[in-house]
C-alpha cells in the first residue's frame, strides 16, 4: 500500500513539473519554431536567483520567488531579442545558439555559486503521514501551485486577446501576420511567457531539489520526451504526456531494484514506442510538410 502511495505522490509531482516545463517549451516552439534547449537553463537560473536573494539579501522566500521570475523573464526576452531574433531564419544556428546560451548560464552559475550542492529551506517544514508514507506539505504546495499556474495559463490563452494572437501565430505565422498581428512582438511575448513558466517551475521546485550547475539537463531530456510524446505544439498533449512519463518514472523508481538508473531509459522507451505507432505524438496534428 505504501509503495502505491509513494508512486502516486511522486508521479503526480514530477508529472506536474514536467507539464509546466513542457507547456512552456511547446509554446515557444509553436509560435517561433525555436527548439529552445536553454529552456531548463532558465529554470536553473530562477532557482539560483531564489537562493541568492534569500541567502545573501536575507529576504523571505515568497518575494524572492517573484524577483526570480521577473529577473528570468527579462533575461529571457533580452536573450531572445539580442541573440535569437537576428538568426531566426537559420534553424541550425538557432539550435546551437540555444545550446551555447545554456552552457553560458551553467558556467556563470558555477562561477558565482561554485559547483557545490546547495539547498533552499522549505516554505513549510511540516508533514503528515498516511499509511506510513510521509507527505510533506511542501509537496502539496508544489502540486497546488503547478495546477493553479496551468489554469491561469489556460485562461490567458483562451480568454484574452493576446492569447488569441499567440494561438493564431502558432497556427500559421504568415496568415497571422497578414491579419495585422505583430508577429515578432508576439514571439517576444511568448518567449517571455515560456521563460516565465520555466522560472515559476524552478521557483516551486527549488525547495524539493538540490541546486547544482548541471541541474538543467535531466529535466531537459524528460521535458523534450514529454513534448514529443504529446505532440509538438499541443498543450493537451504536453499535459497528458507529462503525467504518463511522470508516473512511468515513479513506478520504475519505486518498484524495481536499480530503478533510479533506469527511470530515464524506461520513460524514453515509452516515448519511442508511442512514436513508432503514432509518428505525430499522442495529440499532435500531422501537417504535410510546408514546401
Amino acid at each position, binding site marked *: 500500500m505504501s509503495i502505491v502511495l509513494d508512486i502516486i505522490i511522486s508521479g503526480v509531482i514530477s508529472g506536474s513539473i514536467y507539464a509546466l516545463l513542457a507547456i512552456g517549451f511547446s509554446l515557444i*516552439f509553436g509560435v517561433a519554431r525555436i*527548439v529552445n*534547449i536553454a529552456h531548463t537553463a532558465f529554470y536553473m537560473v530562477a532557482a539560483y536567483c531564489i537562493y541568492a536573494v534569500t541567502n545573501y539579501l536575507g529576504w523571505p522566500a515568497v518575494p524572492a520567488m517573484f524577483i526570480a521570475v521577473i529577473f528570468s523573464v527579462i533575461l529571457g526576452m533580452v536573450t531572445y531579442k539580442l*541573440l535569437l531574433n*537576428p*538568426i531566426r*531564419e*537559420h534553424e*541550425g*544556428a538557432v*539550435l*546551437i*545558439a540555444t*545550446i*551555447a*546560451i545554456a*552552457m*553560458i548560464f*551553467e*558556467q*556563470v552559475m*558555477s*562561477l558565482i555559486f561554485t559547483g557545490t550542492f546547495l539547498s533552499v529551506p522549505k516554505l513549510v517544514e511540516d508533514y503528515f503521514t498516511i499509511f506510513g508514507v510521509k507527505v510533506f506539505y511542501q509537496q502539496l504546495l508544489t502540486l497546488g501551485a503547478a495546477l493553479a499556474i496551468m489554469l491561469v495559463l489556460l485562461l490567458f490563452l483562451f480568454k484574452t486577446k493576446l492569447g488569441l494572437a499567440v494561438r493564431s501565430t502558432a497556427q500559421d505565422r504568415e496568415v497571422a501576420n497578414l491579419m495585422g498581428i505583430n508577429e515578432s512582438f508576439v514571439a517576444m511575448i511568448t518567449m517571455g511567457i515560456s521563460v516565465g513558466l520555466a522560472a515559476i517551475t524552478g521557483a516551486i521546485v527549488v525547495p524539493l531539489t538540490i541546486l547544482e550547475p548541471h541541474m538543467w*539537463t535531466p529535466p531537459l*531530456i524528460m521535458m*523534450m*520526451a514529454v*513534448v*514529443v510524446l504529446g505532440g*509538438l505544439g499541443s498543450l493537451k498533449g504536453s499535459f497528458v504526456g507529462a503525467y504518463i512519463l511522470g508516473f512511468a518514472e515513479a513506478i520504475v523508481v519505486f518498484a524495481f531494484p*536499480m530503478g533510479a*538508473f*533506469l*527511470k*530515464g*531509459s*524506461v520513460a*524514453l*522507451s515509452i*516515448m*519511442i514506442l508511442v*512514436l*513508432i505507432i503514432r*509518428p*505525430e*505524438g499522442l495529440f499532435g496534428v500531422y501537417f504535410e*510538410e510546408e*514546401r
Partner: protein
Amino acid sequence: MKTILFYIRKLFAVVKNEVLVLPSRVAVIFFFLFILLLPFFTDDVYILRIFTLASIFAIFAASWDLLSGFTGQMNFGHALFFGVGAYGAALLNLHYQIPPWGSIPLGALVGVAAGLIIGIPSLRLKGTYLALTTLAFPIILLGLVFTFPGFTGGELGISGIERLAPTRVQEYYIISVLMLGLCTIMWAITDSNTGIIFHAIREDEIAVRASGVNTTRYKLLAFCLSGFFAGIAGGLYAHFMRIAGPSTLEVSLSFQVVIWAIFGGAATIYGPIGAVFFLYPLVEFMHVLKDYRILMFAFVVLLVLLFMPDGLFRWLREKVEEECPRCKVRNIATRKTCRVCTAPLD
C-alpha cells in the same frame, strides 16, 4: 619510364591549373601538410595528444555532417554511435583479446547496427520529432550501462584496453592518416551520385520520391554510413584513451558534435573538420583561463553564429571565392573574368 613522366607532368598540370588557382584547395593542401608534418616541428606529448583527439573528433563531426547535414535527418543522439563503437571495441579487445586493427572495425560494425536500429523507427519521423527522438537513444543506453555494471564497468567504464601503438608519435600518425583518409572518403561519398541524392532528400523528399528514388533505402544508408564512421571514431578514442566510459554516451557529446558541425558549416564535410581543428585546440589552449574557458567557448560560438549563421568556413569560402554566373565554376574573388569561360564576374 615514359608513362611515369607523363603522370608526373599530368600531376603538375593538375596542381597548377586546378589546385593553385583556388584558395580553398590550397588551404586543403596546407592542412594535409600541417597534419602530416606536425611531429617534425614538435615532440611535445601534450600538443600531439590534442591534435590526435582533434583528429578523432574530426571524423566524428564529419560523420554527423554526412547524416544530418546532407540528408537533413537531424540527429541529436550522435554520441550513440561514438559510444557504441567505443564500448564495442573495448569489450572485444578486453574479453576476446582482438588487437586494435580488428576491434576498431568490428566496433564500427556495431555502430552500423546501431544506425539500423535507430534508423528504422526514425524513418517515419521528421524534423524536430526526429531530432528529439534520436536524443533519447544514447540516454536509454546510458541507463543500461549503469544498470549492468558487471558487464559494462558502470560509472568507471572499461579500462585496461590495449594501446594503439607503443609511442605517441606512432599513435598520432595512425589516427591522423586514418582521419585524412576517412574524411576524404566521406567527402567523395557526398560528391558522388549518392551524395546528390542525400542532398536532394534534405531539400525536398517528396520530389525525390516522385523521381523514382527509394528514399527509405537512402536514408537508412545514410544512418549506416554515419554510424560506421562515428563507430571508427569511437573505437579509436577507446584505444587512444585506453578507457571506454559513460562520457562517450553523454548528452553533452551529442550537443558538442552539433556545435562543431554547424559552427563550421553544415553539409560541407570540410566545415566540421575545420571547426574541430579550430575549436578543440582553442578550448585546450585556453586552459590558462581556467574556469572561464567553457564560457569563452560558448561566447565564441554565439558571436560567430550571430555574424555568420551559415557557418565559419562557408562564410570564409564565400569571401575568397566567387561562382561564375555562367558556367558555375569557382574562381578566386580577385579575378575579373571567369577562368574557364571568361564571362565577367560581378
